[in-house]
């Protein structure tokens, strides 16, 4: 094992300080009593109170949450199907176009995705609102889901599925009883990824939404365009806390699952030996 040098320690310290300090500062200033965001005037939770009484923000949060739940769920189903097609379906007509359409949205600038979908919705005369944002978010997040799921599917031993088929399962049963439990962690992380992408999206939502469905990022963006606002600091703190708790809980859960699987494997080994 090579020595962990002073240089390594310094670069990690500065690196993580750079990554986290801006957010820490934002959180600290969300508890600032002053209206002036750069002057510290004592501890206060005033901005949280104002935020929770602001109906527009609450409405926007509700719109965002609904869009994220619907779009990430549809995207997970479509993305898992697409991953199965890419890994398992073999050759079929139009395969190149299909994989092209899966990967292209990942590198497409958001402004272009947003513009093109808006022009489609106008072209077919679909009223812009929650539905159009859900359609837009589903389309780009299903591609992320399919990348996550297909990397898991690619390492999956097809013999297990074949055994299930030999034992009399229908192909759908074999998928539900054998494949799905094994790829479940990838499907869940695909869903989480789609959910956060949707929560986070400003550009595509701005293009595809109508006046009836303002999402939280759109609301934040229009509020901060002119400068820093203490209410947005409070809102950011709530969102950061939400994500941090979620990610830490998820990583602890997977760690525990790994430990349990390890224990099971050892127990099985002992039983066999």
């Amino acid at each position: 094992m090579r020595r962990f040098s002073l240089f390594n320690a310094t670069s990690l310290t500065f690196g993580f300080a750079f990554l986290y300090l801006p957010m820490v500062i934002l959180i600290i200033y969300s508890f600032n009593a002053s209206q002036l965001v750069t002057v510290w005037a004592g501890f206060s939770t005033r901005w949280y109170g104002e935020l929770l009484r602001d109906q527009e923000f609450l409405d926007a949060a509700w719109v965002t949450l609904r869009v994220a739940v619907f779009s990430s769920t549809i995207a997970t189903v479509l993305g898992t199907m697409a991953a199965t097609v890419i890994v398992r379906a073999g050759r079929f007509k139009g395969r190149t176009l299909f994989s092209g359409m899966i990967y292209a949205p990942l590198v497409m600038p958001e402004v272009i995705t947003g513009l093109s979908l808006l022009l489609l919705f106008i072209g077919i005369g679909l009223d812009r609102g929650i539905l159009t944002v859900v359609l837009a978010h589903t389309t780009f997040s299903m591609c992320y889901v399919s990348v996550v799921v297909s990397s898991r599917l690619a390492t999956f031993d097809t013999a297990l599925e074949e055994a299930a088929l030999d034992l009399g399962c229908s192909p759908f049963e074999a998928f539900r009883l054998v494949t799905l439990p094994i790829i479940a962690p990838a499907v869940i992380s695909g869903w989480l990824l789609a959910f956060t992408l949707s929560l986070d999206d400003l550009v595509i939502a701005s293009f595809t939404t109508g006046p009836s469905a303002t999402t939280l990022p759109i609301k934040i963006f229009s509020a901060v365009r002119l400068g820093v606002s203490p209410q947005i600091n409070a809102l950011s703190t709530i969102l950061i806390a939400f994500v941090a708790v979620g990610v830490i809980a998820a990583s602890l859960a997977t760690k525990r699952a790994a430990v349990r699987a390890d224990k099971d494997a050892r127990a099985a080994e002992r039983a066999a030996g």
Partner: protein
Amino acid sequence: MRRFALIAVPYLWLLALFLVPFLIVLKISLSDITLSIPPYSPKLDLSAGWAGFVEFIRALDFENYVFLTQDDLYWKAYLSSLWIAFVSTLITLAVGYPIAYGMARAAPEWRPTLLMLVILPFWTSFLIRVYAWMGILANEGLLNQTLLALGIIDSPLQILNTTAAVQIGIVYTYLPFMILPIYATLEKMDESLLEAAEDLGCSRLSAFWLVTFPLSRGGIIAGCFLVFIPAIGEFVIPSLLGGSDTLMIGKVLWEEFFSNRDWPVASAVAIILLAILIIPIVLFQRNEQKEREAGT
């Protein structure tokens, strides 16, 4: 039958909501702006049959593209987007490499935690991470206050609303994309190669330059593309941190569409942006393929 449905559902979804919209952009980029709803012509009139289609095709032209080459706002915006993305990518590499290197050298039991600390900001709202810098970089912001208090500067520096602020924003938000692929290559590197280099008389520094750095090339290239490609079309960062003189093409497209309501020109801007992006995307794919082949 079941296989057919499995392929058809995602296929049709992507055709309808990815490929068709893209073709519409292409078509509108060849149309002319008009004062109508929707604000462009020609419109395809299917009721006129084949003759209507021929007339529709005849009315398309490359006028908007010619316009883009004549007005220097556009090509300046393309060039400056590429330049800002390029400089930011190099800075991100300079900041990210030592972090990835430190992570790979840390004790194995620490690595999952460090990895999570790099990924965590990625899950946090992009918009909020950019916004966080507005309070820091402002004239009366925390950075200027600190520098003034320390006596390093006499008057506040104008950082917010400049190109430098945009670059800071790009480096900050895209840093995890640089760290992760570099860390991945460094982590699986064979340590005995370094020992061999040192046994053969290399100093630690030259062992790094001659062994570690070349071996992490794949990760460096991947990381650079992962920062460079999305940075070119960036909208949020230039509009929150940049000033009126910071030209970036994503912002130009947005304004062309929402402020000027010129859909044909906005579409032409989008098509050229894609044409520019194809080069780095193809190079990136090639690098990924090479890495995969080397890995197996």
